[in-house]
């Protein structure tokens, strides 16, 4: 106990205390940065979702109005109701137009033209054609009341009335605005906002009021089917090889480096691969779920292999030793014990890989899946589009109605992704065994 030490001690704690306030301020500041970062991330998440949902919910609804339409045989040009060709080729737009003029009491070319622009004439025509196909005889020369779709611009405007600046108003002239007002004020039989069923039951269309997601949805299903059928067995086989069989040598290292690198190669590069190898070299049909599935298989394989390997690693060696101990061969140990025990982990990885494939767009762009496909694909070799590509297509379309369709499709896509991820979490929680 010398004097020097006592001085020193006094000195130290004084110095420490002197700087303390400054250091604690720095500490608080640092923590604040952390909290701010997290808040920023969460804010972006909330903002993104509110934005998509507020736009997307509009896309699920549409404005209809009930209208009386007289199916006058002369106007339709039908002379014989048993002749199907005549029924198909009849002039349905003419009766719709007539009904529209009556509805708005439009006279004169200018007014008639204005009136026509408020109602989706073609779509209504197709609807009547559909009705006539089944029972033309009972309908001909009667007056039916059906819900007709308003024009997509009218729908756009109606959905935004009351918003700042009333976007969409600029599409219409005085007369049309007056008519819209009149429709809105009608006590009964006026405009009605209803769930747009056609959005779920029809394919893409050039008219936004008729466009639906069914074809893209089926395309996505086929694509996922192909991807799953290829990537699941191949991914598991590769993982089993690398964990159970592979000797420690240069070749195995090369495979591992390749897998890890491929997991980080931009997806668009896989699109180039698909274009050059599958389309140009092998001559597979363009825009099909088959080619899309092949490309996405190559893309998702690294994800599946990496997570499957982790699952296999988690199987304790004691189980293998027990099986070897009673004389099982390597293949038997693998098939009877390792794969079943690692299956939950592998399934989780596969679901996550498939979710990634479902949302993927860039490589599909390269192999021509960003195409206008109104028909629902019937198989994996039919031209098809998928949900992300449909969203992209609608996004690129300048017509007013398509943007909210795209938002609605995004909501459906995200819903499916959330479901798949929830399934993966469930599989992990429920099936995974801990040792």
């Amino acid at each position, binding site marked *: 106990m010398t004097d020097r030490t006592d001085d020193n001690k006094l000195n130290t704690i004084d110095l420490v205390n002197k700087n303390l306030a400054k250091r604690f301020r720095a500490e608080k500041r640092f923590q604040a940065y952390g909290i701010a*970062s997290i808040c920023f*991330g969460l804010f972006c998440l909330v903002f993104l979702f509110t934005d998509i949902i507020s736009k997307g919910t509009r896309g699920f609804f549409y404005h209809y109005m009930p209208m009386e339409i007289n199916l006058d045989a002369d106007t339709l040009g039908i002379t014989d109701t048993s002749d199907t060709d005549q029924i198909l080729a009849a002039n349905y737009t003419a009766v719709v137009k007539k009904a529209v003029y009556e509805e708005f009491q439009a006279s004169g070319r200018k007014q008639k033209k204005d009136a026509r622009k408020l109602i989706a004439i073609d779509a209504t025509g197709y609807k009547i054609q559909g009705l006539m196909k089944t029972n033309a005889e009972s309908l001909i020369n009667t007056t039916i009341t059906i819900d007709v779709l308003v024009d997509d611009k009218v729908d756009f405007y109606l959905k935004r009335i009351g918003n700042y600046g009333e976007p969409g108003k600029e599409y219409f002239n005085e007369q049309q605005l007056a008519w819209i007002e009149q429709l809105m004020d009608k006590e009964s039989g006026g405009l009605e906002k209803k769930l747009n069923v056609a959005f779920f039951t029809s394919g893409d269309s050039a008219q936004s009021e008729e466009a639906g997601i069914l074809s893209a949805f089926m395309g996505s299903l086929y694509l996922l089917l192909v991807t799953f059928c290829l990537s699941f067995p191949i991914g598991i*086989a*590769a993982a089993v090889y690398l964990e159970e069989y592979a000797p420690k040598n240069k070749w195995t290292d090369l495979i591992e480096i390749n897998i890890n*690198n491929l997991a*980080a190669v931009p997806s668009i590069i896989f699109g180039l691969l698909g274009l050059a190898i599958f389309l140009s070299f092998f001559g597979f049909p363009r825009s099909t779920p088959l080619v899309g599935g092949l490309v996405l298989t190559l893309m998702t394989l690294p994800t599946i292999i990496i997570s499957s390997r982790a699952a296999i690693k988690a199987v304790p060696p004691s189980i293998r030793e027990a099986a070897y101990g009673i004389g099982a061969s390597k293949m038997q140990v693998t098939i009877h014990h390792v794969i079943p025990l690692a299956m939950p982990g592998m399934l989780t990885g596969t679901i996550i890989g498939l979710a990634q494939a479902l*949302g993927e767009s860039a490589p599909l762009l390269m192999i021509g899946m960003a195409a206008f496909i109104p028909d629902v694909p019937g198989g994996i070799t039919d031209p098809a589009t998928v949900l992300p590509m449909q969203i992209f297509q609608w996004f690129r379309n300048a017509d007013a109605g398509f943007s909210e369709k795209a938002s609605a499709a995004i909501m459906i896509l995200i819903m499916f992704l959330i479901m798949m991820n929830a399934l993966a979490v469930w599989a992990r929680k429920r099936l995974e065994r801990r040792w």
Partner: protein
Amino acid sequence: MSFSTLFVIILVGIAVAYVLGRSRSLTIAGRLGGIKSLHSLPFYYGTQAALWCAIPCLILLALWAAFDDSIIRQIILQHLSPEQQNLSAQELSLLLNTVESIASGVSSIQASPEVMAIADRVISLRQLSQTILAVTIICALVLLAAWGWVKVKPEYRARNGVERVFMLFLLTCSTLAIFTTVGIVFSVLFESIRFFGMIPITEFLFGTHWSPQLAIRSDQVGSSGAFGAIPLFTGTMLISLIAMIIAVPTGLMTAIYLSEYANNKVRAIVKPLLEILAGIPTVVYGFFAALTVAPMIKNALHGLELPLISFAIGPLEVSGESALAAGLVMGVMIIPFVSSLSDDVINAVPQSLRDGSYGLGSTQSETVKKVILPAALPGIVGAILLAVSRAIGETMIVVMAVGTAARLTMNPLESVTTVTVQMTTLLIGDHEFDSAKTLAAFALGLVLFVITLGLNFFALRIVKKYREQYD
């Protein structure tokens, strides 16, 4: 017979071979006194026989399916009339398409007799090919099944054979990764070499003018177009830089806060929430960037007079497709990527270092800044490199939110274009596969691949070294 019918026939053949092999082994075993006297279980004899049938037949079928169309095409091309052979490439492909649609019965267009003759020829060649294939495969099936049946002997080591095939199957699946890489390299390399045959590589890499739109037709004036890719590189760099400025600090601080400060409850809620950001498809981000963020930025900043800056260039001019919007949204997308990678890295720093620092009386932030971050630095650098490679290769956000006009600028408020945007614009739609315009996309792809591969390779090595250090 169609391919699918043949496929079913092969499946039936395999099943029959299995049953035959298995039953024969059982018969032999019965004669010798039980299954014990066989080398392997009956299952393996059956499987062995089935594999002998399956592998050659399926390979044959696959090869045939892959190549018969192109072989038939070659035969047709060789038998074209002289004037047809003199057609330009475009007209020839049109002709072949017509033939194809007539031959497959898709359309009933009335074409000229010559075309109809070619179509008939295609149909007959196809039928011939199908017949040959069917006969070959059925013969092969019968012979192989018979051979497999003969091979069943008690001392025959069927299990070892089956296990070897199983192992080879696993090995093949695992080498797919190598083949994919090789496939990528070949598909971009060959087309790029052809491209560099038309446009010198130096002009491509160091040229500052990019306007490939001119090269629509080969006989057009000034058809060569301009393929100086520097504006694309700078555009890509600008957007990636903006994304990194957003993502790196935010992601890193998030990781630090979650691993060092937050309690388990907060972590359990915040982590999965932020990971949702990583799971959102890029097309959704693109949509959000183009329709929400870009207009917002434009409304907020356009015409704004900032001191100093406005003095030099006047009021701000903001493009509706500004690089800022795309970069911002891309940054948000990358936040969870950076944070989860950094989280792993930070958690790998041993607790003893933290204890050492706390034991000396340092505050948490001092421990983080002076001990944990320096110790984790290599891992964090690796994570950032991976994030950069991700930003460079990101496609949908930029395709949807920035323009296609190549501008050599570093102003984030202007519209720029990127490598990936140009690749998609050059390749979407029907183009001649040989024009400089489409080939340029492959050259861009090569550049993108080389850069991202290099970044990934180094990043993964750094991270691996780093992990080994603390294992």
